[in-house]
């Protein structure tokens, strides 16, 4: 009988949180794809006005704000790793502010669409797919903002344990995901579909 081969003492498994968040992002992507496909499928199939080309304008500032919030959240994380709490809070707050601006922009855009352009969910298939797709994304921004704010408040109150940096990382992953989705949404809705 031969002795069992010695196994190396190291036995490291991937982090449960990371795998869970990756799975969550996977399942969310599947959800977004369906609404995206619905939007693409109904492009140019509205029977009555308004059409995308008449009412949509490219949201320059909102897009820049949301995309740069992905950068500021990285700065924030880097500050945390250096142990610079002040810079962490500052960049984190900037991220929240940029996200909030994006949300505010969506609010005014929708207000304008509803009350000036008379486009609602029930107007035509463009309205149906537009509000559901952009609204789905906006709802994810809201969830992200809620999490970001929660972390900021807890951290400012000193109730956030120092060894929970992985939580911060996970929230930033989620935030990057929300941004990535926006790149696709903005391309489909404000660049491709305005030809119709």
């Amino acid at each position, binding site marked *: *009988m*031969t002795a*069992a*081969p010695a*196994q190396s003492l190291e*036995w490291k*498994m*991937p*982090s*449960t949180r990371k*795998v*869970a968040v990756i*799975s*969550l992002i*996977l*399942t*969310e992507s*599947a*959800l977004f*794809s*369906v*609404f995206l*496909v*619905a939007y693409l*499928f*109904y492009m140019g*199939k*509205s*029977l009555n006005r308004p059409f995308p080309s008449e009412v949509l304008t490219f949201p320059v500032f909102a897009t820049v704000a949301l995309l740069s919030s992905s950068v500021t959240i990285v700065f924030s994380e880097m500050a945390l790793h250096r142990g610079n709490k002040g810079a962490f809070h500052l960049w984190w707050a900037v991220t929240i502010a940029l996200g909030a601006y994006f949300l505010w922009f969506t609010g005014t855009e929708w207000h304008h669409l509803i009350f000036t352009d008379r486009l*609602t*969910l*029930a107007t*035509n*298939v463009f309205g*149906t*797919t537009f509000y*559901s797709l952009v609204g789905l994304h906006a709802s994810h921004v809201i969830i992200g903002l809620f999490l970001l704010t929660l972390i900021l408040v807890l951290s400012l109150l000193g109730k956030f344990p120092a060894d929970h940096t992985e939580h911060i990382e996970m929230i930033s992953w989620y935030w990057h995901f929300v941004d990535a989705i926006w790149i696709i949404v903005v391309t489909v809705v404000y660049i491709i579909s305005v030809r119709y």
Partner: protein
Amino acid sequence: MNPETLDDNFQIPAPERIGQERGSLTRIVQEMVFTVDHKTLGLMYIASGLLFFVVSGLMAAMIRIQLSVPRNHFLDPDVFNRLFTMHGTAMVFLVGMPIIFGFANYLVPLMIGARDMAFPRLNAFGFWVFFFSGLLLYFSYLGAPGLYAAGSAPDVGWFAYSPLTAKAFSRGHSTDYWTLSLLLGGIGSIATSINIIVTALCLRCKGMLLVRMPLFVWMFLVVAFLVIIAMPPLSACQIMLILDRYCGAHFFDTQAGGSAVLWQHFFWIFGHPEVYILILPGFAVASEVIPVFSRKPIFGYPVMVAASVMIGFISLGVWAHHMFTVGMTSIGNTFFAISTLLVAIPTGIKIFNWIGTMYGGKLRFELPMLFCLGFLFQFLIAGLTGVMLAIAPFDWQLSDSYFVVAHFHYVLIGGLLYTIFAGLYYWYPKALGKMPDFKLGLWHFILFTAGFHLTFFPQHLSGFLGMPRRIYTYDAGRGWDLWNLISSIGVIFQAVGILFFVFNLIYSYVKGKKAGDDPWDAWSLEWSTTSPPPAYNFETIPEVRSRRPLWDLKHPDDPDWKYE
């Protein structure tokens, strides 16, 4: 790790006076409501799945009574339509899904040498969301008529094609109950699946490399990935339907330029992977049971893993074979016929590998093995009728006929349910510490098998003779009378078989002989702990060196790790 699962004597602190003494009813209820233990939740999943199974089985029996003779007046058309809708929806979402999740919950941590699932509270959340989604669906019988007394339970069929679900054609709230129930159930399934993925990937005990994971865990890993990718389209469908019905949206509104076919695409992007979500757990059970009762390791483990992963991938690209009749272009039809036929390859490999496992073994025909052999034979038929349905031109004749009904019952009963029975008999001693009674189980096997084939084989033939599915009655003289009568008679045998099964579960628990830790002389980790396992599963977390850790222990002279 959660403190609850570590300490057997942990008491839920409040309210203090309720159910102190063990075994009292309040105590049991309290334990069920508060538990986050994967084993208790697993058993609760299986028990509620079996409960819904009996209820929707009785619904099927009523359907068969109505169809036993032509122009029968046993049921009104609306009642009949509700019955088949509820039967289908419940069997998929309230029977199949919870029972497979029950198996995953109970066994995945035990098989990989973990103390619990990765997120025990999320696990409890998943169960309760599923359970209430089930209650919500059945509550529609009482709640759906609403103020207008229109409709009762949903009657749109389990895939609820639009525009039949639009407000104009489905008044009252029955469709809303259906929609909300599925939306809720989907959330629960996704939560549980993320839990399974994380558990299998992150909580393996020392030495349990991915290539040493039991096939059972591998297949559930594939299932969980399929759920998290395929379930969101279903949820999206339901959200769109709610927006259509309540906010005036036009996703499926054909009057406003909407498309009725879009629902079918979205639904089947979920619906076809769902079939594999339901049958892969069947494969998982068979891949555990067949080797143990053949006394040989599984034949071609790497190929089995590869085939499961391949089935998972291909299943995401075959959905429109449910839609060969909607008038796709010849290119679309050809593409989906081809992708569907490709599934036959990995599935065929699996069947051959199971037979290869038995070849040269010493087969012990215990209850789990009997049901697995039934599974192999019946799944062979189901697979071959599936090949016929994949041939798009043949499908133009067969689709939506009773042939399809026969086909998917051979898949879901002949395939899935048989392996569920096999799994229940196989792990019964582990979970409850008592051996299931062989004689009662044998009667269950014989009666149920006879009834199953009597009921569903003739349906292939009535399908060939042009009988469409979902009709509440038919005229005499169209060649369907005899086959329907035989089909209905089969139900009696099935029902008696199920009675034997239920009785066996109870009888063996009370009177069965003690099982011991490892009654089947098996090789995976769950058999290394006591029966039933303690709350913390293992006294010390095991360490493994091969795919069959217990074989290594029992055969130190010829351990598996020598061949890896």
